[in-house]
């Protein structure tokens, strides 16, 4: 056991990982120019394994930081020489660094970014994610309730087979396209193509640097339905007509859309106000007067630019608006980040640690340089 603790708490591991993180930061920063901020962040910092040049697997940012976290934790807990009064500054700095990593972990696991669109007079409790997609299958057979089965983007990879007890068929993912364009077929499609793919094909486009400019698409095969619905189907984001299929007397709709999160509270838009720059169509400022409704109790709040609403870990910023012939709608950016305050707290703690360490070293410095003492 002692041997394991000695290995895991070795400062050398921290040195290796911090050097490797520096390399990843350089690679990720350079990659941003070609693949954009979001893709670069995903490839170098959020991934467990990063494939250099698409062929060489190396530890990604996430795994590197986990190793660093484990190493630092063991160092703080088991390095006896750290728990001495003369090392108090160093110990506090270690704890600050640990908190920084824990905050990063919380952000990586639990944070989400999306938007909420609310028409004037209406309310919503739904956030659409900016980046993540979902394949939604809706059983619309019931007259009152629709039954939703949702598969998140991480399992929409090529070759994955999706099944669920709610569905009496399987779905095999043939391809997931980050950016695509539906193009009219110039030749008749094979008999196994169904729905939209009978007349269109999804043409792969180079992913845009700005992730929200991409239009993801998916092709999938329905199997084991025991009906003529078996075949290859396609979907793309923003498709105006959902793909439908009748399988064993059940009506299904298939949609690819931005990942939806339903909140335990709702926001009702009472009034949306905007001020435009004179003589232009460019907004100068806009604000939303809303009711935050929780457990049936409304609370009136004004959301303005730089004056967000914070509630239950979510922050709602005034992001944009939509003008229609029958009224206006507000667009709120909804951000959830439980690790939001960790960088501030850990920076303060590390500064205190550094300060203590320096203060403790002053007498030594003065002794070494007697002229300063004079």
């Amino acid at each position: 056991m002692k041997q394991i603790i000695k290995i895991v708490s070795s400062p050398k591991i921290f040195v290796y990982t911090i050097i490797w993180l520096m390399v990843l930061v350089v690679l990720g920063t350079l990659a941003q120019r070609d693949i954009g901020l979001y893709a670069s962040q995903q490839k170098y910092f959020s991934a467990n394994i990063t494939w250099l040049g698409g062929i060489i697997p190396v530890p990604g940012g996430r795994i590197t930081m986990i190793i660093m976290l484990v190493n630092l934790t063991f160092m703080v807990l088991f390095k006896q020489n750290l728990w001495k009064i003369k090392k108090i500054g160093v110990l506090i700095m270690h704890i600050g660094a640990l908190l920084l990593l824990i905050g990063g972990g919380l952000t990586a696991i639990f944070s989400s970014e999306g938007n909420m669109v609310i028409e004037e007079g209406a309310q919503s409790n739904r956030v659409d994610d900016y980046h993540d997609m979902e394949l939604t299958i809706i059983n619309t057979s019931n007259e009152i309730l629709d039954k939703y089965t949702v598969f998140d983007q991480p399992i929409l990879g090529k070759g994955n087979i999706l099944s669920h007890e709610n569905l009496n068929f399987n779905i095999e993912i043939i391809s997931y396209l980050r950016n695509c364009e539906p193009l009219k077929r110039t030749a008749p499609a094979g008999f196994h193509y169904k729905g939209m793919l009978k007349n269109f094909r999804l043409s792969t486009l180079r992913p845009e640097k700005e992730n929200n400019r991409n239009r993801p698409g998916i092709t999938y095969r329905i199997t084991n339905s025991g009906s003529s619905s078996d075949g290859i189907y396609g979907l793309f984001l923003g498709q105006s007509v959902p793909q439908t299929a009748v399988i064993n007397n059940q009506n299904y709709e298939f949609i690819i859309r931005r990942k939806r999160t339903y909140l335990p509270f709702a926001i009702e838009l009472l009034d949306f106000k905007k001020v435009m720059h004179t003589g232009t169509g460019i907004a100068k400022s806009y604000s939303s007067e809303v009711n935050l409704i929780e457990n049936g109790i409304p609370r009136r709040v004004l959301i303005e630019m730089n004056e967000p609403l914070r509630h239950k870990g979510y922050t709602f910023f005034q992001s944009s608006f939509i003008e229609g012939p029958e009224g206006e709608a507000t667009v709120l950016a909804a951000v959830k980040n439980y690790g939001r305050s960790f960088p501030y707290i850990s920076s303060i703690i590390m500064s205190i640690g550094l300060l203590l360490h320096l203060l403790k070293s002053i007498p030594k410095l003065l002794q070494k340089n007697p002229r300063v003492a004079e």
Partner: protein
Amino acid sequence: MIKNQITFILIVIALLSCDSGNHTRTYHLPKAKNKSFIQPAVENKKESSGFTWEKPNLWIPTEGTSMRLASFEVPYSTGSGDLSIMELGGDGGGLEANVNRWRGQIGLDPLTKIEIENEAENGVSELGTYQLFRLINLEKKESAFLTVIVPLRSSTLFIKLNASADGILELEEDFKIFCLSIKLENSNQ
């Protein structure tokens, strides 16, 4: 010692590389009575286009694609252009994405949202406010676009004319008059 440290790192990598997260969810929702832009992707296509318009006599309706509400062959002095009307759920993929996609199709570099907003010619039609974009690449004059984007309550209407750069300039006035004539079918006006 180094061998042991490497072993530790590899074990952590192996243990944490496995994604055990549950990525499947189920829930029930009451049927949406009024599918508005809060649920853009499930907007049902109407049997008819749902719109009326007045076109110049010279424009010839063409079959187009099933995604288009209507298509016209639009003749001008040195050729003919292709005009399409499409209605997409929600914001139809967004202003920035669509304009930059069209710009890419004629070899122009993408613009930021602010630059796009500055490029737009804003106006008001029977359907509400609209934005008109004139997309011409002077180095590739054979293909250019004149597009109008009209955000509606639950969808976005895209009216796009594809012709040569000269054709676009020649047809712009007719195109604008046509766009301004588009109304909802049940509109009283």
